[in-house]
């Protein structure tokens, strides 16, 4: 049973088709990487799947909920970390986490243990009382992730979460993700770093709103006869562009 499933999901902004007939199926516990150049439609896809943007056509289900008709119950089960995760910079680390815990109605009895665990994972415990605005970029992203995970979501959407994050924080970040995968959390990950894409179970290459390939990194490399995903994607996009111009 696929946790994320879309059929011909399409979103247009005026003349621009940001997402063009997207069909994907992602099983439970998989980490799926959505890669593509800037403006390819990654963020729009995320917003469609998290129920905050209505599709122009097509349908989608996340965790068994329809992304338009059941958007509200869908939201109890997912977490979405947007490119610029919104932290309240005038609140401290712990106040930010508590705020999101309040919004998701995390019971008091579970809260302390969860917060401790999340802060521990992300190495933020020493900075508990620091204002979010005074954290470094990497720490901000880890705090964003901690906030997003406070209600133990079943599906996690991450939109380029490690952009501009230092390597150490990035490693912390991926360690948390691997732990989540062990707990059968499904992760939908968009990135423009191809080394991160390599770590995903499967990757989808999106370009101008269209999903050009969707397979395991190994298969994609084998099919295109390239050594790295980077070369593979360059050749796939080049192929698509030349086919279109003919």
């Amino acid at each position, binding site marked *: 049973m696929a946790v994320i499933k879309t059929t011909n999901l399409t979103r247009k*902004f005026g003349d621009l088709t940001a997402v063009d007939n997207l069909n994907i199926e992602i099983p439970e516990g998989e980490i799926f990487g959505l890669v593509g150049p800037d403006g390819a439609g990654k963020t729009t896809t995320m*917003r469609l799947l*998290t*129920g*905050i*943007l*209505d599709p122009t056509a097509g349908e989608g289900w996340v965790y068994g909920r329809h992304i338009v008709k059941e*958007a*509200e119950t869908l*939201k*109890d089960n*997912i*977490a*979405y970390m*947007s490119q*610029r*995760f*919104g*932290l*309240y*910079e005038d609140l401290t680390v712990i106040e930010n986490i508590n705020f*999101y815990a309040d*919004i*998701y109605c995390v019971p008091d009895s579970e809260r302390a243990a969860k917060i401790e665990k999340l802060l521990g994972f992300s190495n933020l415990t020493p900075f508990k009382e620091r204002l979010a605005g005074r954290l470094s970029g990497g720490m901000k992203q880890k705090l964003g992730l901690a*906030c997003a995970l406070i209600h133990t979501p079943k599906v996690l959407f991450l939109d380029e979460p490690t952009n501009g994050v230092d390597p150490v924080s990035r490693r912390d970040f991926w360690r948390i993700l691997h732990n989540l995968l062990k707990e059968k959390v499904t992760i939908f990950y968009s990135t423009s770093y191809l080394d991160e894409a390599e770590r995903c179970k499967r990757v989808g290459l999106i370009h101008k709103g269209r999903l050009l390939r969707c397979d395991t990194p190994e298969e994609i490399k084998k099919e295109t006869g390239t050594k790295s995903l980077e070369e593979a994607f360059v050749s796939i996009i080049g192929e698509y562009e030349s086919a279109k111009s003919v």
Partner: protein
Amino acid sequence: MKMIIFVSPVVQILIFGYAATMDITNIPMAVYDVDNTKESREVTRDFTYSKYFKITKYLSEEKEVQHVIDHGRALCVLKFDRGFSQNLVGNRTAHIQLVVDGTDSNAAQIIVGYSNQIILDYNNRALQDRAHVYLTRLNIVPYVDLRDRHWFNENLISRNYYLPGVIVLIVSIMSLLLSAMAIVREKEIGTMEQLMVSPLKPIELIIGKVVPFGIIALVQVILITVVGNLWFNVPLRGSIPLLFISTLIYLMTTLGAGLLISTICATQQEAMMSVFLFYFPATLLSGFAYPIANMPVIIQYLTLLNPMRYYLTIIRAIFLKGVGVAVLWDEMTVLFIMGAFMIFMSAKRFRKTIG
């Protein structure tokens, strides 16, 4: 931020209380007395004895009249021609010229009004003096004497009229600005997207935004009321709970309008401009400075849509007239309907989707 929210009302009320008074006193006046007789000096003295005029300069040449008015040394010039007293003594009509700077038409009218009163009093006294001397029986000739009583603001202190209005101005601008920034700000810093993917309902978010701003506005009302009442002795004759209740009802309209602006605008700058687009017409058409009865009929009807107009009526009535719900219920009902509509519209408009 805390400073701005709580200090600015006090600063504004101090400015309005001390400086921005519509009472016209100490009008700078120049005197050009060519006649220079006992009578002309008596008239001049009557002007200075009233608290309204202050003589800034005695002129000795005709061309100086133009000069003092041009340079703003005087707002009016009192001019006696030669023969003024001769005419009076000779039982002929004597003329005085009053040259008034009409730039501020309102002030000019008031100056003329005061001057007429002073001259009228002078004439009456002169008449009575002469009657006493020559015709004692004239005293019993019946005449009409108007005795005026000013209710609610007995001494016609303009401050009493304007300070309660300042509550309206401050509460309006603060609640509008804060709420208009509220959602837009979260859009800008990116927290809004995060709130959208949460199970938070639109109405919960709207209430979460409205309640704290409502409390801030109430504290401001208390501040201004305390300063106005204790420091400036503006009477507060009506019920204080009614003042709070009507403020809360009014806040529904401004907070609702602010949030509506906030849901429509993309940036804080845009929201700020939109607030002023709403605030200035609302203030001008509220009756705060310009009486609604003086406006063209069509504009008068337009003011019926202005929530500030109703709140201003309520506030002035509570402060000065001391009337209660029995008199004010229709204004309160209109405000309540407007407020509920505004809140409803902003919650509706705030759909939890982007774009």
